[in-house]
């Protein structure tokens, strides 16, 4: 199965457009880059928080599309992995030939607050009335607990943030353009202790997209593509853990590596879902790059930039590119396709053959529910 045509619609901090505008730009960019016509894309997945009251089906009429396979995937940070999995099955089963997976959100000045207040029933009943801190507060708990349990220091999280900023300086579409030093990271103002400014993503507007199709089709179209080697998905794993220190990857990673016929040591880069750095450490542990609790030692040991010993979030991740709602769940996937098709420009990981993309989504109450991962391989 081929994954191709990485598209990023340039992000902006605030937009007066609706989500439809951003998704339209993403779809049209897919057509332009692939050379396909509208009716040649016969499958569509849509992920967006701000598309309401519409869903994927409304978007088909809005954009004049007539797909024979359609899916709405409101899974936030897990959207990219899940969209790819479903699209690949649809193509495999013959329900569609070419599936466009698109994700995008707008960001008006007040839209983030409104999204938070009604994010979920549990959030409205049992989180938002407690200081209305949004995900900052939820991840502050996880970060504080992780620090006390595993001896992580702020510098360990800082190392990720500083490295990702260095990567972002080589990604022209990243919203953050200034270098970040460890001193600046440590001196930032507190947001929700122990989280400080640079631990938190910045909400913005933007869109991301890619295509899923059979490899022979991609070849006949002359497309550069990455090959899907393995993928896992799990929701609400370890529900009885009193505080989240692991997610579905810990349950399913053997399956992932078995499908791919490769192990963590074979990965040339990793794209984690990085809305907060502690979550990146959790993914590295659960996906077997190091043992549980050894995340801090792992990041101390490795260079994390695109040219380091462990290239991580090579476009800068959401922390340095910006979090465009559900598009944040696509960011790592789109960057991985770029890396494996030689389109990563000045941050190209040398000889990158295998890459792992991880997704994590939906803080429904006190933890992220959805997790998934994909291993992609360079072809040609």
């Amino acid at each position, binding site marked *: 199965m081929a994954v191709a045509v990485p598209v990023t619609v340039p992000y902006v901090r605030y937009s007066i457009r609706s989500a439809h505008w951003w998704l339209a730009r993403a779809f049209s960019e897919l057509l332009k880059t692939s050379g396909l016509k509208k009716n040649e894309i016969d499958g569509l997945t849509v992920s967006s928080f701000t598309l309401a009251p519409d869903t994927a089906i409304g978007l088909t009429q809005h954009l004049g599309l007539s797909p024979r396979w359609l899916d709405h995937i409101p899974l936030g940070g897990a959207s990219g992995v899940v969209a790819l999995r479903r699209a690949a099955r649809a193509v495999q089963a013959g329900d569609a030939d070419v599936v466009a997976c698109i994700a995008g959100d707008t960001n008006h000045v007040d839209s983030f607050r409104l999204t938070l207040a009604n994010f979920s029933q549990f959030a409205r009943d049992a989180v938002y009335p407690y200081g*209305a801190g949004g995900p900052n507060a939820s991840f502050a708990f996880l970060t504080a607990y992780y620090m006390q349990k595993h001896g992580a220091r702020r510098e360990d999280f800082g190392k990720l943030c500083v490295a990702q900023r260095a990567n972002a300086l080589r990604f022209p579409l990243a919203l953050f353009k200034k270098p970040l030093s460890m001193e600046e990271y440590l001196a930032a103002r507190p947001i929700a202790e122990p989280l400080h400014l640079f631990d938190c993503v910045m909400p913005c507007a933007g869109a991301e997209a890619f295509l899923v199709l059979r490899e022979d089709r991609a070849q006949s179209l002359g497309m550069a593509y990455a090959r899907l080697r393995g993928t896992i998905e799990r929701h609400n794993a370890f529900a009885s853990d009193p505080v989240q220190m692991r997610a579905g990857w810990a349950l399913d990673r053997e399956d992932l590596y078995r499908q791919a016929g490769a192990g963590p040591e074979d990965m040339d880069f990793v794209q984690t879902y990085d809305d907060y750095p502690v979550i990146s450490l959790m993914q590295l542990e659960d996906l077997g790059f190091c043992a549980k609790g050894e995340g801090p030692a792992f990041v101390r040991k490795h260079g994390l930039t695109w040219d380091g010993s462990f290239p991580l979030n090579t476009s800068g991740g959401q922390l340095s590119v910006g979090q465009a709602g559900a598009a944040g769940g696509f960011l790592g996937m789109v960057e991985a396709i770029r890396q494996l098709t030689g389109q990563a420009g000045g941050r190209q990981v040398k000889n990158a053959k295998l890459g792992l993309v991880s997704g994590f989504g939906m803080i429904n109450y006190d933890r992220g529910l959805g997790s998934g991962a994909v291993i992609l391989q360079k072809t040609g």
Partner: protein
Amino acid sequence: MTISRRKNPILRTRLPTLPPAARSRVALGLTAAAALGRFELQQCGDCGMVQYPPREACQSCLSVNLLWREQVHGGDLLAQTVLHHSNDLFFRERLPWRLGLIKLDCGPTVVAHLHQSVKHRVQVRAALDRAGQAVIAALPEKEKADMADDRQLREFTCDPKHRKVLVTDGKTPLGQALAKSFAKAGAEIIWVGHSEPWKKFAGFDELKNLPQVTLLPFDVTDSKNVREAAAEIAGKVDILVNNAEVHRSFGIANRQGVETARAEMDVNYFGLLRLAQEFGPAMRSRGADGKASAVAWVNLLSIYAHANFPPHGTFSASKAAAHSLAQCLRAEMRPAGVRVVNVFPGPIDDEWNQLLPPPKLAPETLARAVVGALRDGVEDVYPGDVAQEWLARWRDNPKALERELSA
């Protein structure tokens, strides 16, 4: 905690804002219990699982037979944060704000407002916040003397400490007990009304000698008097306690004419209406006025407000009317964050309940219950064994209670 005695009249008074008030219907189970000062969580009637946040089905066995049951209060603090940023106006004005993630002894993990002196073990309680909705607050496991002074906790409670109180009727033993209880609780000023100021009443001297007390001519049946009193003090009252009542027993057939019933209505129902019209607006405007803002309005109702007690039939009717009006007042005061506390006592041990058998409520006990309710942030108070028993009967089966009371 120190509070400046005088406020600069030139400076703008902070306007009331409320914490996020939206809840799903099922989550209001927590509010219903918190209104009575109870900490209840959903418990599965089939498998016994305790769960939170509230759900429509048991997360373990999928049963929809979910019961709200009182739970143990203990828990462990797993992690904490201090918010320096909030997306909501109410909290933005009150940062920094401390929160905890608590593993309850009864099972679930909860997000809670965290008292400043919590270290590891906590006791949680469900409190009503300024929006009138239940939230979980985590307090130190062992009570401490100055525990109520916690800045965050005071946002949920209506503690009389440092506050200015009006008790509308000081002539009754209950009014005098209330004044003494508020003085003991640290109230700064206590205005105590008396309806016939030319007459000295029993207990007058003792009341007058309390340093916090200022006696005030006050008659809830006199619109002009209420308006004038409001003009003088309504902008300063933080807690209003309306304990003025007329209580004459007998049902319908035992008395001719409507004069007595009208007198009961004039005090018990119209008295509340007059007070609400004159004092309500000023208190609403001061719902967020510094550390000692307007916080509460207490109504002395009666357990008979829920179901008529025929031997005290017209009194019951007047209290039912007052209860209904108090619900309206509660809705109107809520946008300002001022809590309306309704007190539903059983028979008070006074002359009008002479023929009722004990247990009867001592005025001092009732006064302590009122202060306790304000401190705990409760909004419906059922003090005493009789009230508790009636409440239990009424919640179980209102029709059965009607029959029992008319037997």
